[in-house]
């Protein structure tokens, strides 16, 4: 699956645009819509800056079509000798030219065990009813594809995933829940995702994973990162409780 997709990177890409996000960040915009080619170009620059940071680079935040580069204007300007924004843009232009065409870091596919339905996936029936599918078919279609993690955001470790089976698209709940547990796997419109922290939320919850998506004591603290692929693997409720960290 990944081999034919990777070749897309050789296709024509318009040169990225730069614009400031305030006085200490520059946004590098690689395109206008979500695509694998755009994602790979972002990952490539992100990896390259990670391996060859410039003086004053604070951190980079990849998103669907952008890489936001946070910098320290004081260090970038060499304590006021240069204009910080112009200097960062010049450095990034040069890095873009020398960055390899594909991401440097290749990740293994992460398997996410999910117990679908029942108390752990209370909205499975609602999704089945809305889509006109049997619950077992919802599970089969949800756990079939490899999902690409385009970016993390919203909450620590929360992945924005690509490629939900179009047949599974279901609107959010009319009444959001006041508390969704960490590990809940949900559908909202054409998106699917995993809650990484207990928060209020309106997604249709079809299952739950016993894995912790965010663990501040771990290194790295998140299970996932942008550029990874993941697959949902159906498990039984017994398996869920065996794998669960809860008592």
């Amino acid at each position: 699956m990944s081999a034919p997709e990777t070749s897309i990177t050789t296709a024509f890409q318009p040169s990225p645009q730069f614009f400031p996000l305030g006085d200490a960040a520059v946004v590098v915009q690689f395109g206008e819509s979500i695509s694998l080619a755009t994602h790979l170009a972002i990952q490539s620059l992100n990896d390259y800056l990670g391996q060859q940071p410039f003086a004053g680079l604070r951190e980079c935040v990849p998103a669907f079509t952008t890489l936001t580069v946070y910098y320290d204007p004081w260090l970038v300007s060499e304590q006021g000798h240069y204009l910080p924004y112009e200097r960062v843009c010049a450095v990034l232009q040069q890095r873009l030219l020398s960055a390899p065409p594909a991401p440097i870091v290749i990740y293994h596919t992460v398997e996410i065990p999910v117990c679908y339905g029942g108390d752990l996936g209370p909205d499975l029936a609602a999704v089945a009813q809305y889509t006109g599918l049997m619950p077992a078919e919802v599970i089969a279609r949800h756990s079939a594809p490899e999902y690409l993690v385009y970016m993390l955001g919203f909450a620590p470790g929360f992945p924005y995933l690509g490629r939900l089976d179009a047949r599974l698209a279901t609107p959010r709940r009319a009444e959001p829940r006041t508390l969704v547990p960490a590990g809940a796997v949900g559908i909202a419109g054409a998106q699917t995702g995993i809650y990484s922290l207990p928060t209020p939320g309106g997604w249709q919850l079809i299952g739950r994973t016993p894995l912790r998506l965010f663990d501040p004591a771990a290194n790295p603290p998140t299970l996932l990162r942008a550029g990874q692929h993941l697959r949902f693997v159906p498990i039984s409720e017994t398996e869920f409780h065996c794998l669960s960290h809860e008592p």
Partner: protein
Amino acid sequence: MSLSVVRPGLLTTVQDLGRLGYQHLGVVLSGALDAVALRVANLLVGNPQNAAGLEITLLGPIIRFETDSLIALTGADLSPTLDGQPAPLHRPVAVWAGTVLAFGAARAGCRAYLAVAGGLAVPQVLGSRATYLRAGLGGWHGRALRAGDELPVGTFSPVAQQLWQLLAPASWSAPWVAARWLASPALCPTPHAQPVIRAVRGPEYEQFTEASQRAFWHEPFVITPAADRMGYRLQGPALTRDTAPELLSSAVTFGTMQVPPGGQPIVLLADAQTTGGYPRLAQVITADFGALAQAAPGQALRFQEVSLAEAQALYLAQERRLQELRQAIEWKLDSLSASV
């Protein structure tokens, strides 16, 4: 070395300069909302600028210093007292063990900072001691302080030791002694009741109607009670876009002014989520984060447009002033030790 919390106050948290380097994983920055105030307080007690101190919100705590301490208070004037006597802001103060710090009415601003020589020695989580309340991360057990908490304090730096020797005579007649000098007012501005916050245009500025753009720069926006360390919801003229293309989530940060569909803007602060999908109308300049953080619900903000070049010049000027403060303290100590 420690200090203990007799009363916690409204919202008192351990903060440093934030959790840098994890935003790509969705981990928010956190850290002091008025970072310059914390940096100044740290410099005044000989700490590294990113040492952990206390961020104190509106109703201050009662704190007892369990060991002899060198402290500095900056940011809001919340009528601090040491053993009942008014305590000065913006200067190093040597306090004996047992001295009690308390606060009264909020005279100006809403966030005060307490730095203690040696820094608050709470464990680092992901490279930072900052408290992120929503995830229960960092700080003192991931939460705001409570009565009975006893926080460990680190050891004095060489600069702190020199400052201590300078301030503390062999025998004291008072429970505390303040330095006769203080940080420059340019680094410690008195928070204004009607602050003007400078900002540059945000990435989606051009999508807003001309009327909305004009209203944003010319009308006051009141901070609503929906205000916390994540951001302030503001109330003012509704801000609308000419075109409303679907936006894909992208980075947002401290100072980002985003406008949800209702048209009432939200200005994000240190606990902002790392990415967002609302249009970004403007971005508050770093040099004005302190003024923004010192404004409380009910206060009106006005926004003034500046160019990116101006914003960066103001950023650099602020860094230069912090550098000068650090040098001034070192020179002061050098000249005093030379004259002994």
